[in-house]
């Protein structure tokens, strides 16, 4: 198992990425805004870093809680889940959306229906 850790601070158009350990599994949280003009600049290195920290570990978790996601980020997020799942078939994806956010909820449902076999749960987060 890798001892790599990962933390990326949120920018005005890219999300925060945080890595934590839960037993021997990795929990990677991606939260905030994802609307970079060039999505590959952000998601390609992120994919490589996630690959690196998850190497050898099983039952990893990817937790998403995005406030905004542009359509190009959507494809990159799908690629990221798909690639992590290839290395870890026991991967768990938790897709959170803020209450009332129909688009982010719909995006979660779409990805769940595309990603056959992935343990993919969708959770509403109620904010007061």
């Amino acid at each position, binding site marked *: 198992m890798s001892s790599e850790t990962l933390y990326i601070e949120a920018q*005005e*158009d890219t999300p925060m990425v945080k890595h934590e350990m839960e037993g021997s599994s990795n929990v990677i949280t991606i939260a905030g*805004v994802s*609307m*970079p*003009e060039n999505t590959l600049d952000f998601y390609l290195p992120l994919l490589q870093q996630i690959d690196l920290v998850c190497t050898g570990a099983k039952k990893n978790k990817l937790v998403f809680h995005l406030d*905004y996601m*542009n*359509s*190009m980020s*959507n*494809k990159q997020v*799908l*690629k990221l889940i*798909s690639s992590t799942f290839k290395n870890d078939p026991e991967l768990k994806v938790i897709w959170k959306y*803020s*209450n*009332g*956010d*129909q*688009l982010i909820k*719909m995006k979660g449902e*779409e*990805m769940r*229906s*595309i990603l056959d076999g992935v343990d993919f749960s969708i959770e509403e987060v109620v904010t007061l």
Partner: protein
Amino acid sequence: MQLKEQVINDTSQLPLIVYYKGNYEDISTETLINIIESNEKLAKRKSQLRKVMFLSVEAIQNIQRYSAHKGNEWDHYLLFFDGDSYQVVTQNLIHNKDSQSLKDKLDVIVSKDQTELDELYFKKIESGEATEKGAGLGLIEITRKSNKSIRYEIKKVDEEYSLFNLYFAIPIAITEETTFDFSKAINIQAKLDQFSKGTESCFYYGGDFSNSFIASLLDLLVSKKAEKNDNTNKKVHHILIELTQNIKKHAQFKNENARGRIFIEWNNQHIEVSTYNNTHLDNAKELQKKVVNLNGANKEQLVQKSKDVLADLDSANGLGLIDVANLIYPNKMNVTVCNESNDHVGLLFSIKINNE
């Protein structure tokens, strides 16, 4: 020609224009200033832009402090850059009982020369006369820093209210001229007034469509206290991201001034978002075809289209338009091709989101 096209045509030569009409108690000054700041990279005269931002804070806070806040119909802020100068116009409703004292205060300020203004400014600060409402410090500051271009008008509306209009300019080249010609500002203001009439509030912008602008625009919308319904607002925010990024990605400019335009109109029943940009005729035809196709799809078909395009990971095909169609359903997207010249056209894209 619809009013929107007239506004676009009348302001087409302006590299930057920002207009917001509405209740200024409901928005944060900072978010509006950040929208101006997002144009800093493109500004040829950065120091003048910063001065405009600084004085705009004073002008907007004047609306917030002194407006009678009678509905949203009257109060607005307008800034534009025409290549020679930045010009600012503010309008707010005041009580008739306050109009004489405001006029007296302004007449004193306007009559002073630069040295006297500086003296008055420091005297006010030192005497601690600056109260919570500022004791007119903002107006003195605007006059001091705008080469004394300040001009005002107070017009009686009815037995209770008057309209207060304030104009000032930051020219690129400082001249000895003491009177500034605001006829262009007055014309643009009149056109925007006509356009925004009947809306609860209205935003019009032309300038840089960078992600800094989009982030600032979203902050402005989030700060709008009147936006209580999360569901409708979230939809508007998602749609704005797609549409503004589309302008950035697809707009082709005939000249650097024609960067793109966006309108947001808040009404009782719905919120309307419209964007405008120049593009090649072929691109416009392509977009029209896509829009006709999506407008003809029912909800299930739209959901399926979205899934199909998303699942095709190797395709560069954008999901943006499908997302917009999904979010506004059952409303339809509207595309108008206008201002044709050679193989370039203007593309006006509009959608309505119903209030839920």
